[in-house]
């Protein structure tokens, strides 16, 4: 059974390994250089300055020289990861379309469900093994991928709540991949056509993604309010604010700043990941029930008193 899962999905596995290898190459060439420049030139302090509201450190006190350092850093390194960060949110969707949708739909389309479910293993065992193998492989590759991307994106922004950093931290990124995969699998089970299921995965995934990232994420906890921009430094400001310059630094023009402080990062990661994993589990449970619900009730052997019970245990 393990061999069969491997043989059927080795294409996907090779694709995933190729992706990891490509990422590795990028990290070694671009990422290492970027990190070195970041540490060496003291870019972090300048970022904090440029992103507003903090006292400059001694290494880059003059605003002018900070601008040069920051600008030079951006020009040299920022374009590749920023472009990647724009496309990476769609990567989970691609996993759902290429791996999730065909998983069961292709068996129905090719008619091989009639072949593989009349061999010696029950449908239950077949499905459990296949899902375990696919989920195990996907999670492993995704965790490695997200770890690499997170490291790569570290110098991009000083704030952990920035989209590049929050979306690609290991827990949340894995959560989105699992959800997209579950959507693809369920669509394949219900629609029994690979292409249609893949197409349906797109709007379903986008709906989940947009709702979670922009609708739910700011609301996991009550934001804090302040009028002092210095307090909100490093945190996630969740509304547009207008600053006016002043001799002591930027000052709030009107209203209060609502923000989530930086130390809420891991809590928010946990909440969002839990939402995504639970949603994925629910979708997979539905798919499971549908696949097995169409099949025979295999526990009748025990219940029927006229049948002699075999010595081998039921799966």
């Amino acid at each position, binding site marked *: 059974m393990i061999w*069969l899962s491997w043989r059927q999905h080795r294409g996907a596995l090779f694709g995933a390994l190729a992706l990891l290898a490509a990422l590795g190459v990028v990290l070694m060439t671009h990422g290492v250089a970027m990190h070195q420049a970041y540490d060496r030139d003291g870019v972090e302090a300048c970022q904090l300055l440029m992103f507003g509201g903090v006292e400059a450190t001694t290494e880059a006190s003059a605003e002018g020289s900070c601008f040069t350092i920051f600008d030079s850093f951006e020009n040299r390194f920022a374009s590749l990861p920023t472009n990647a960060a724009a496309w990476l949110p769609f990567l989970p969707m691609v996993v759902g379309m290429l791996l999730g949708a065909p998983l069961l739909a292709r068996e129905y389309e090719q008619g*091989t469900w*009639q072949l593989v479910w009349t061999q*010696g*293993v029950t449908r239950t065992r077949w499905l459990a093994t296949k899902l375990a193998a696919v989920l195990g492989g996907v999670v492993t590759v995704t965790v490695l991928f997200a770890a690499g991307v997170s490291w790569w994106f570290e110098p991009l922004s000083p704030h952990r709540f920035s989209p590049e950093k929050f979306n690609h931290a290991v827990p949340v990124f894995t959560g989105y991949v699992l959800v997209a995969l579950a959507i693809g699998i369920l669509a394949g089970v219900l629609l029994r056509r690979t292409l249609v299921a893949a197409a349906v995965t797109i709007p379903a995934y986008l709906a989940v993604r947009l709702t979670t990232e922009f609708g739910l994420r700011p609301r996991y906890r009550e934001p804090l309010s302040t009028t002092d921009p210095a307090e909100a430094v490093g945190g996630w400001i969740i509304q547009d604010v207008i600053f006016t310059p002043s001799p002591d630094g930027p000052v709030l023009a009107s209203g209060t700043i609502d923000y989530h402080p930086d130390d809420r990062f891991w809590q928010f990661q946990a909440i969002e990941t839990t939402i995504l994993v639970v949603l994925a589990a629910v979708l997979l449970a539905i798919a499971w029930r549908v696949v097995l619900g*169409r099949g025979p009730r295999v526990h009748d*052997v025990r219940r029927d008193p006229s*049948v002699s019970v075999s010595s081998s245990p039921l799966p």
Partner: protein
Amino acid sequence: MTSSLTAEGLGKRYGATWALRDCDLQLPTGAVIALVGPNGAGKSTLLQLAAGLVRPTTGAVRLFDEQLPAGSREALAQLGFVAQDHPLYPRFRVKELLRMGAELNVTWDGQVAADRVVQLGIPPDRRVGALSGGEQAQVALTLALAKRPRLLILDEPVASLDPLARREFMQMLMATVADGNLTVLLSSHNVAELERVCDHLVVIAAGRVQLAGDIDSLIEAHSVLTGPNTHVPGGPNVIHVNRGDRQAHVVARTFGAEPMPGWQPHPVGLEELVLAYLRRARSDDQTSEAGLSA
């Protein structure tokens, strides 16, 4: 009597349509059983129910004297199934398909399967999608037989094959039957070619079993009676009447008894018998539909 398959009140509904209904059957062991009927009559549904691929809406189907529930692991271990159009994984090489069989089945005669593939002239390294239709059908049959099943179910196994491929398929199948311990249940909508191969018959039309039994007994129990158009007998033993201007041919259950005076009996051929029951089923269907819409 030993039985290979028992169906009681078996029925399957898809949405509002009954694909199979009120099916009561008991099939013997060691026979080659023909399942005959027009397209859409319920043949595939019955076979899929027997293999445990779909869940019945009503009733149950059990295999062998042990009455194993269809689809249970015990039943699957002794059942070989080849679906319509012999589905296989097209990107798998033939030897990988055999490996799949070995992995998924407890009883597996891998050596015989591999030998058979070679004997058929099929290269084990070739991808299944690159094989001809006849070769694919042979591979599917090899897979099913390598389990050493007690019951082999084939859904229209030769429908898409050319005459030579068809003959070779049947040769291999019959040789395996000759080796013993195998019951074959095969469906087809072509009666003529089943005649040389089958010794038991089930006729299905409009989702219902119309006729079932040992072929020799059925032929003996029926006759074609030829007689005057004006005095055609009726009753439940009259299956179908074919009226000419002055003469009528009646297919009837006569049980070897003497016919009425004025009526010439002739032995009935298998195809003629099946057609008579199919025609009766069709006119019954039309009558009941007319009754419903009236």
